[in-house]
């Protein structure tokens, strides 16, 4: 007996998989009205500890000793940009890593993994829906930066920054895929996500310049995509450097992205196969 196959192009049908996944996740998000309180409060509250911490240590908005190691005397914009990009880390790692576990918990994972489509597009949809909320946060935070901390935005700045953020997100997706793969096997992914988030916030220059870290920690930090994204974005926004001058950071980000995404998909397929053999795919 014949199987009814899709009458639309693979590109179109894969686009609909991604789109349906995004729509589904956003509908889930909006199904809980309390989320709006979080969305309203979170972007503002996120800044406060960084600002107060900076004021307490530096004693003002600028510091010469800070400028000596970071290249900019403005501590607050430095930390604000760190916080802004770091918000993508948590949403990507936690969101995508946990999404597989959530499907298992809901009982839908069996159906998703037994559908005749490429799982990569489902995962891309999951990742993109997580990034949408991060981007809303980022824009709110950026608006706060412009209004209160004197950060200037021009088209010449915003386009290269968006490019760097996309490169950062791709690397984070790769790492989130690794977490999603581990959650297939070990189920509890959010503990791993939190651990990784702390690794990012300690070893990447989120609140302090990379030079503040001991040498061994700097080496570790240089394996993380957030490090290069922060260096590049701060250089563009605070030191007025061009994207061309940051070609090394861009290249290293591209390499990390490629390795993380390859490893992520490889590990996900491997773990899927393993759990299908052990019969634990729908366990949670």
């Amino acid at each position, binding site marked *: 007996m*014949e199987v009814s196959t899709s009458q639309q192009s693979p590109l179109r049908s894969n686009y609909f*998989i991604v789109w*349906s996944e995004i729509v589904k996740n956003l509908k889930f998000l909006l*199904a809980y009205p309390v989320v709006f309180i979080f969305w309203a409060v979170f972007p503002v509250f996120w800044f406060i500890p960084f600002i107060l911490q900076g004021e307490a240590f530096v004693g003002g908005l600028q510091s010469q000793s800070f400028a000596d190691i970071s290249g900019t005397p403005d501590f607050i914009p430095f930390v604000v940009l760190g916080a802004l990009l770091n918000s993508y880390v948590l949403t990507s790692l936690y969101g995508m890593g946990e999404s597989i576990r959530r499907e298992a918990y809901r*009982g839908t994972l069996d159906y998703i993994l037994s559908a005749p489509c490429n799982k990569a597009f489902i995962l891309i949809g999951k990742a993109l829906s997580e990034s949408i909320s991060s981007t809303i946060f980022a824009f709110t935070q950026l608006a706060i930066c412009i209004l209160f901390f004197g950060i200037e935005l021009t088209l010449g700045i915003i386009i290269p920054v968006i490019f760097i953020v996309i490169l950062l997100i791709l690397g984070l997706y790769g790492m989130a895929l690794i977490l999603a793969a581990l959650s297939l096997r070990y189920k509890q992914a959010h503990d791993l996500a939190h651990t990784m988030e702390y690794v990012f916030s300690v070893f990447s220059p989120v609140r302090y310049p990379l030079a503040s870290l001991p040498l061994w920690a700097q080496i570790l930090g240089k394996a993380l995509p957030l490090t290069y994204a922060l260096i590049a974005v701060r250089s563009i926004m605070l030191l007025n450097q061009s994207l061309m001058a940051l070609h090394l950071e861009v290249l290293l980000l591209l390499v990390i992205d490629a390795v993380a995404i390859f490893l992520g998909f490889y590990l996900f397929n491997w773990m899927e196969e393993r759990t*299908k053999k052990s*019969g634990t795919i729908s366990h949670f």
Partner: protein
Amino acid sequence: MVYNEESNDYSIQTIDLTKRFTKKKHRGIFGFLRKSRKKEKPKSKNSDIVVALDHVNVKVRPGELFGLLGPNGAGKTTLVKCLSTILIPDKGTAVVNGFDIRKQTSMVRASLGMVIGGERTLYWKLTARDNLMYFASLYKMPRKQTKRRIEELLEIMQLSDRADERLEDYSTGMRQKIAIVRALLHDPPVLLLDEPTLGLDPTFSRQIRNQIKELAEKQGKTVLLTTHYMEEADQLCDRIAVINNGKVIAVDTSDNLKALVKETELVEIACYNPPSDIRAHIKLHCPDVEIIELIHGNEAKGTPSRIKLIGGKAEEHIGTVMDMLRKKNVRICSLNIGMPTLEDVFIKLTGARLTESGRGGS
């Protein structure tokens, strides 16, 4: 349907399908510490292995409604999961709609619609329509066609007017109907239905059974239906495979399976307050009866207990057993001879009752 048994043209064919699971006794950190402290000697490998499917060979014809009847833990769900490619078998393989489950997984998946795991396999926070639109996208269905198909199927299931309500507001039976609609969205030639009426009230069960029957009879779908409800298998299925402990022990039509228990081989006595040692007494006086079953009724609610004698020359022992019951002041309600049910067939084949819980989790 006239069918050539030699033909390879089956909708579903399993070939020595085998699946074993390893039991994990020590789970979590405390389990690990306990194991380390006790320094347990490793047991033989076989003691920690559960054979869920043991060289299963089943052939299902196109358009056939094929039942898989067995108790909980018999291996029914494992078989369905292997066929749907959610589970990879250890040995053997299966062919679904002409595609090998090991080598042609995408084509197998496109050929199948499945209802497995009950009502919890849908997104309760989304509407029925949203659920169906999402799952249709995973089957690469064009949007316009999907919308039409959803309307058509919801109409058949009499749920059109509730399509835009969240599933959390649905009853269990309605959610199960949506699960069936999901399985039918891409119009697959083969359906795997794993206990589709489990936990439903009689009205919804009847509606769903009618739908299943129509799918096979009017739409020509091949249906593999797993159930532990013998009436369901009896009423719906063209042929039934009896499965127990991972082995298929008989495959035939319901009538032919019942014929395995000869009229003279089955006696059923309904009575009140039979003593608990009655089986031992009967066994002592009627040694050639193969199986003696005591099924306790709910006597407070007026449902008598039943004593079943199966196998041997059960009929010849009626007098002896009746005398025995009278001497023990047991009130006898009725006596039936030679009217086997599928449960009797199962008892005859396995020595166990179909409704008994097995090893747990299939």
